[in-house]
């Protein structure tokens, strides 16, 4: 296992938000977490990336504990996170924002090379390179955040709702990139409210609810589990429309 959470309990000052989370991410796979709003999905990410310290429990990455490490140290271990909202530097240009993704890298030519690759991949990054990131539209900002995480070549990428705000075409690009990353040997852990799409992309599905993992297994199984489907994956809107 590349990443393993055992009995993680964590919270923000008040009560516990995570109440004993157990989670394992296998190397070279895509794992997708789904669950209701407020289940604690994003909290799992903040705990892994060292922003929030767990109260108890163990987090192992490549067999070594991450507990107590600062966000930089976690990053050095090869773990990158794209948070759910607003993580750009609004007054800096798009280019500076993307380049800052490689803040930890010392090799300048490598940074340049990566940047060239990324701007080839995403036209928005290229076209808006010298504009303030804060002036972009919601979806464009989301895309830049995603592009930024590609600057490092991490072994594990945490993506919190990569699909949010993206138009269908861009969404396909992003999902394609995620698959490419996996094929290149990266491991990906993502949270998706666009649950069916997320699970279809993933190898492994995790259902979280009330700060605990409720179900964990191959994504096919999760997708096809009728109870889970009804509870967390929603029915089809068009079907209901037909009824109305």
């Amino acid at each position: 296992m590349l990443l393993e959470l055992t009995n993680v309990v964590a919270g923000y000052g008040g009560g516990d938000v995570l109440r004993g989370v157990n989670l394992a991410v296998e190397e070279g796979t895509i794992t997708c977490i789904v669950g209701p709003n407020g289940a604690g999905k994003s909290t799992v990410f903040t705990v892994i990336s060292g922003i929030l310290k767990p109260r108890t429990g163990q987090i192992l990455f490549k067999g070594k504990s991450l507990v107590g490490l600062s966000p930089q140290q976690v990053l050095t271990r090869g773990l990158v996170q794209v948070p759910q909202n607003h993580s750009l530097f609004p007054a800096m240009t798009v280019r500076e924002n993307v380049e800052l993704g490689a803040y930890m890298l010392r090799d300048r030519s490598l940074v340049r090379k990566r940047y060239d690759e990324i701007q080839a991949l995403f036209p928005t990054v290229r076209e808006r390179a010298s504009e303030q990131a804060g002036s972009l539209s919601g979806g464009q900002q989301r895309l830049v955040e995603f592009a930024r995480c590609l600057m490092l070549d991490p072994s594990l990428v945490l993506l919190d709702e990569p699909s949010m705000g993206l138009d269908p075409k861009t969404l396909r690009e992003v999902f394609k990139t995620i698959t490419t990353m996996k094929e290149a040997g990266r491991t990906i852990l993502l949270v998706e409210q666009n649950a069916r799409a997320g699970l279809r992309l993933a190898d492994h599905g995790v259902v979280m609810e009330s700060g605990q993992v409720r179900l964990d297994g191959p994504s096919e199984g999760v997708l096809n589990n009728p109870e889970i489907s009804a509870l967390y994956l929603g029915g089809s809107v068009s079907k209901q429309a037909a009824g109305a």
Partner: protein
Amino acid sequence: MSLLQATDISKAFGGIQALNACSIAVEQGSITGLIGPNGSGKTTLFNVITGYERPDTGTVQFKGADISKYGPDRIFGLGIGRTFQLTRIFPRLTVTENMHVAIKRKGLASLLGRWSASSEHDRALQLLQFVGLTHLKDAPAGSLSYGQRKLLELAFILVAEPQMVLLDEPAGGINPTLIGQLVERIRELNRQGMTFLIVEHNMEFVMGLCNRVMVMHRGAKLAEGTPEDVRANPAVLEAYLGD
């Protein structure tokens, strides 16, 4: 006469023409979808309609009256409420207090009276129940999860019962099951006479809910029609949906 009519709206930011002679009309009692690629100007159009941005040219009319020069407070007062794509709630107020900000003030008495004793209080609590935030009603809104904030914002717009509601990506980040319930709720409010204009990238949601869909592209309207028409429109496929 449409309920809301935006005519020839243009808006530029530096070199970027966010809106380019864009005209749309929303009929009373409809649920209209507004879709388009990222950066096509949907949010900017919302900003212009709700008074957060002045158009460079063009006019916005609501119920036949020109509102292009009004501020957001006045426009809300006329009956247009909106949510934001990047959710904006009042982080240091409790969830319940957030609900009360939007409730209309009727005269000085209601302004100076205690909000917690107001007649709308029960309705606010019911809506919280609906979006599943009852257990968090006394928590500061800033401590909500992303999706919960979105739901809260939606709830406090709905509690104000505006005549027309503009929703900017209401389904993004919301659990699919709850989306289903949202759809139901929107339909019901619509039956009671509320008009909706909804920006959303979740096609299932848009196509299932809306009776009319407009497509924006590069700051102007590209297509308009029933969901089926739009879905079949090759220009829309090309610009937005992809193959």
